[in-house]
């Protein structure tokens, strides 16, 4: 039995890879990829008549396999199915780090799941509040209610858009420039930031289109996403590269934080670094760059 450490609500989550909980060949060695989070799937990747088998497989996987620093999240079936309650029981009993709520449309959906999680924590003697939650927004209603969803629970660490279902409900299809989901992504990001949770983009499904994938990940980073959902291990490296700060950004951030500490100690509020005006508004961003750089193994310092 592997007792997993208490999950960290705001850890680094650049990459989150989907894997069917029903496929032992896939999940037994998923930690070797160096992905930030694994998303063991009980929902769409598992056929309707194998939901039971997937849970037994998931339980023993969670209890037996040492995933090390890789976070283990489980995507449960929708609240409109007969499966979600047992899904929650097995996630909590097995000690999953978090649960992804599929097709989430309101704060009430989060509350329903939260209540079942609490009951399961009680039933299986799991520390109360241990099991984190995230929501997948897959419909226009989910996007409209994004803020109340993000702010619905202290267990919520983030929110992700699910492109396949969302595009269908909007009568659109994948567009290379991202225009199909530009509003939804933006609205979700604003809601997530307002609620102080993380925000993840959808999967990119055409594995043969490396150029399209890279363009989409760059756009994700530019829009301010924390990370991306993935379907194949070969997508991990590029995402980590793109989400890592550049050397120039790290050097600049370090200078800003150092200068700010010196200047504010001397009673100065606004000053310049390399010819650019800096005041307190720049500090959280610079500190975030340094934390991310350290998490990516690019910086070893003790400024933050």
């Amino acid at each position, binding site marked *: 039995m592997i007792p997993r450490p208490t999950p960290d609500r705001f850890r680094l989550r650049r990459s989150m890879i989907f894997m069917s909980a029903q496929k032992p060949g896939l999940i037994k060695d998923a930690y070797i990829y160096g992905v930030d989070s694994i998303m063991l799937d009980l929902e769409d990747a598992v056929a309707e008549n194998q939901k039971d088998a997937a849970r*037994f497989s998931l339980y023993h996987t969670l209890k037996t396999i040492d995933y090390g620093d890789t976070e283990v999240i489980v995507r449960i079936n929708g609240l409109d199915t007969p499966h979600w309650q047992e899904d929650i029981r097995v996630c909590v009993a097995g000690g999953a780090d978090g649960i992804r709520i599929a097709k989430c449309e309101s704060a009430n959906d989060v509350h329903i799941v939260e209540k079942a999680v609490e009951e399961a924590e009680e039933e*299986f003697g799991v520390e109360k509040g241990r099991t984190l939650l995230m929501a997948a927004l897959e419909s226009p209603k989910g996007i409209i209610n994004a803020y109340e969803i993000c702010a619905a629970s202290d267990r919520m660490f983030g929110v992700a858009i699910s492109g396949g279902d969302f595009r269908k409900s909007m009568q659109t299809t994948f567009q290379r420039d991202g225009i199909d989901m530009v509003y939804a992504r933006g609205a979700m990001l604003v809601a997530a930031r307002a609620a102080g949770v993380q925000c993840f983009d959808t999967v990119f499904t055409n594995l043969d289109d490396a150029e399209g994938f890279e363009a989409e990940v760059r756009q994700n980073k530019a829009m301010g996403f924390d990370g991306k959902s993935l379907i194949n291990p070969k997508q991990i490296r590029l995402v980590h590269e793109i989400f890592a700060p550049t050397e120039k950004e790290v050097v600049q951030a370090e200078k800003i934080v150092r200068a700010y500490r010196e200047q504010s100690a001397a009673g100065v509020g606004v000053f310049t670094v390399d010819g650019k005006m800096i005041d307190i508004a720049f500090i959280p961003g610079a500190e975030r760059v340094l934390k991310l750089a350290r998490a990516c193994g690019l910086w070893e310092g003790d400024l933050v």
Partner: protein
Amino acid sequence: MEILKPAMAGTLESSDAQVTVEPGEGKIELSLESSVLNQYGRQIRQTVLETLDRLGVNNARVTVVDKGALDCTLKARVECAVFRSCDASAKNIPWGGAVR
């Protein structure tokens, strides 16, 4: 648990095992076929028998076709087949109890 009717769980994919349980004739009859029988036959047999024992199954014909499954996968497939044979695989599984 009593095996009421034939039931199966698992696949013949690599790293998996396909387990079939059927009503027995007063004892456990285990037939095992494995791609790694020479190296791991004894261990697989032991895992399957221990799992059946934990579930209180003592009267069944059990067929395991193993494709190099880890112990945790074998357990999961045996348990699922047994619960399916009792129409009890969909909910209220004793996670951490008989299933562990």
